[in-house]
C-alpha cells in the first residue's frame, strides 16, 4: 500500500474512533425557554401529568398543589386545606382517568384532593404505604415492605383494598439491615404515555415497564452510573442513577440521572444528566443539562420540559 494511502487509512480509523467516543460522551443540552421560579426550597412529593396539553400538577411537602400551564408559561399555587395525618408528609399524586386526584396522607390514609387544594374523601388503608401513582382509573400503590421478596406494586380502585399485584417487580432480599432493605426497596414510577409505565428501584440502572394490564418488561439502561447502596443510604444528597423517567407518546424514553454536578453546585437538588433511549432501550444520546433538573414535566421526541433545581420550568433541546 502506498504511504499516502496508508496515512489516509490511519486517519479514517482515528476519525471513526473519535466519532464513536463522542457518541458515548455527554454533550450539553441548550435551554430553549424558561419561566418561574414556581417552587422554592421545598420538596416535591408528587406529580400528575395530563394527556395532551393540560396542566401538570405538583404536590409539595409544603402542602401545596401547583398547577403548571406550560404553553401559557404560568403556574398557580393552591395551599392544601387538610391537616397531615400524624404530622407525616403527604406523598404521591395520582390523577385518575375520571379526573379525580388522590394522595397519601401519612402512611395509612388515602386522601382525595381537588385542584383548588380542598380535600375530599379520606379513606383509611390497612397497611402502610409510601408512594402512590395513578394508572387509568386505578391507584398504584407502593406498600412499605419489611419482608422481601414480595410484589413491589399493587393496584386498586379508591375504596378497595389495594391487594391486586401489578406487574412483575418484586422487592429484593438484600444483605443489609431490615430498615435499609426497606429503603432500597422503595419504588419510584415515572410517566408512561406510550402504553407502559416505567418504575425502578433507587440503586438500579434498570427500569421495569408495565402495561395497564400488568405485563412487564425490564430494560437495563446503558450510560448510567450505578451507585452503591451504602452511598445511597448514608449521603446527604446521594447521587441517584435514575431520578425520573418519562416515556413520551412516540415511545422515546427520557431518563434524568444525577450525573456529575458542577463544582459549587453539588448541594443542589436534581440531576445533571439527561439520557434518551429508544423504546427498546437503546441509548440514543446522553447530554449534560445547563441547570440541574428535578423532574421531567413534559417531553416529546426532540426535548423535555423540566423543573429545574432553582425551581424554574426550563425547556431543553438537543
Amino acid at each position, binding site marked *: 500500500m502506498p504511504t499516502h494511502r496508508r496515512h489516509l487509512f490511519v486517519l479514517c480509523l482515528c476519525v471513526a474512533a473519535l466519532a464513536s467516543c463522542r457518541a458515548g460522551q455527554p454533550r450539553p443540552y441548550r435551554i430553549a425557554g424558561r419561566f418561574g421560579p414556581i417552587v*422554592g426550597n*421545598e420538596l416535591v412529593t408528587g406529580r400528575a401529568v395530563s394527556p395532551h396539553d393540560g396542566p401538570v400538577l405538583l404536590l409539595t411537602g409544603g402542602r401545596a398543589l401547583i398547577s403548571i400551564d406550560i404553553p401559557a408559561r404560568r403556574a398557580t399555587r393552591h395551599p392544601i386545606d387538610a391537616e397531615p395525618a400524624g404530622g407525616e408528609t403527604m406523598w404521591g399524586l395520582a390523577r385518575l382517568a375520571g379526573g379525580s386526584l388522590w394522595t397519601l396522607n401519612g402512611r395509612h390514609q388515602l386522601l382525595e384532593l381537588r385542584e383548588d387544594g380542598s380535600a375530599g374523601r379520606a379513606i383509611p388503608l390497612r397497611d402502610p404505604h*409510601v408512594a402512590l401513582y395513578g394508572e387509568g382509573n386505578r391507584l398504584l400503590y407502593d406498600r412499605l415492605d419489611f419482608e422481601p421478596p414480595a410484589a413491589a406494586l399493587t393496584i386498586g380502585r379508591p375504596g378497595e383494598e389495594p391487594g391486586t399485584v401489578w406487574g412483575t417487580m418484586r422487592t429484593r432480599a438484600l444483605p443489609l439491615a431490615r*430498615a435499609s432493605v426497606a*429503603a*432500597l426497596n422503595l419504588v419510584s414510577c415515572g410517566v408512561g404515555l406510550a402504553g407502559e409505565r416505567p418504575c425502578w428501584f433507587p440503586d438500579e440502572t434498570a427500569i421495569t415497564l408495565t402495561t395497564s394490564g400488568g405485563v412487564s418488561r425490564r430494560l437495563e439502561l446503558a450510560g448510567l452510573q450505578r451507585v452503591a447502596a451504602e452511598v445511597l443510604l*448514608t449521603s446527604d*444528597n446521594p447521587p441517584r442513577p435514575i*431520578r425520573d423517567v418519562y416515556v413520551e407518546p412516540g415511545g422515546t424514553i427520557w431518563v434524568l440521572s444525577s450525573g456529575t454536578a458542577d463544582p459549587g453546585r453539588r448541594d443542589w437538588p*436534581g440531576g445533571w444528566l439527561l439520557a434518551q433511549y429508544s423504546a427498546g432501550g437503546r441509548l440514543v444520546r446522553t447530554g449534560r443539562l445547563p441547570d440541574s433538573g428535578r423532574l421531567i414535566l413534559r417531553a416529546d421526541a426532540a426535548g423535555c420540559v423540566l423543573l429545574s433545581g432553582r425551581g424554574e420550568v426550563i425547556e431543553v433541546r438537543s
Partner: protein
Amino acid sequence: MKKIVLVGCLSVMALVSAPRTSLAGCTTRLADCYVRSAKVDSFWYRWASGLDCELDYVECARVKLIGA
C-alpha cells in the same frame, strides 16, 4: 414596571433560597431511636418502638431516594 420588580424579587429569592437537602442523618436518627427504644421496659412496647424507628427511617430515606 411592577411586574418587572416582582419577577426580579422572585428571582433573587430563588437564588438566595437555592434548594439544598436538609434531611441528612437518617441513619444517625435511626441509631438514636434504637437507643431510646432499648430503654423501654416492656418487651412488646420495646419491639413496637423499634418498629416505629424503622418506619421513621424509611420515611426519612424516602426524601433522599425518591423525592424530587
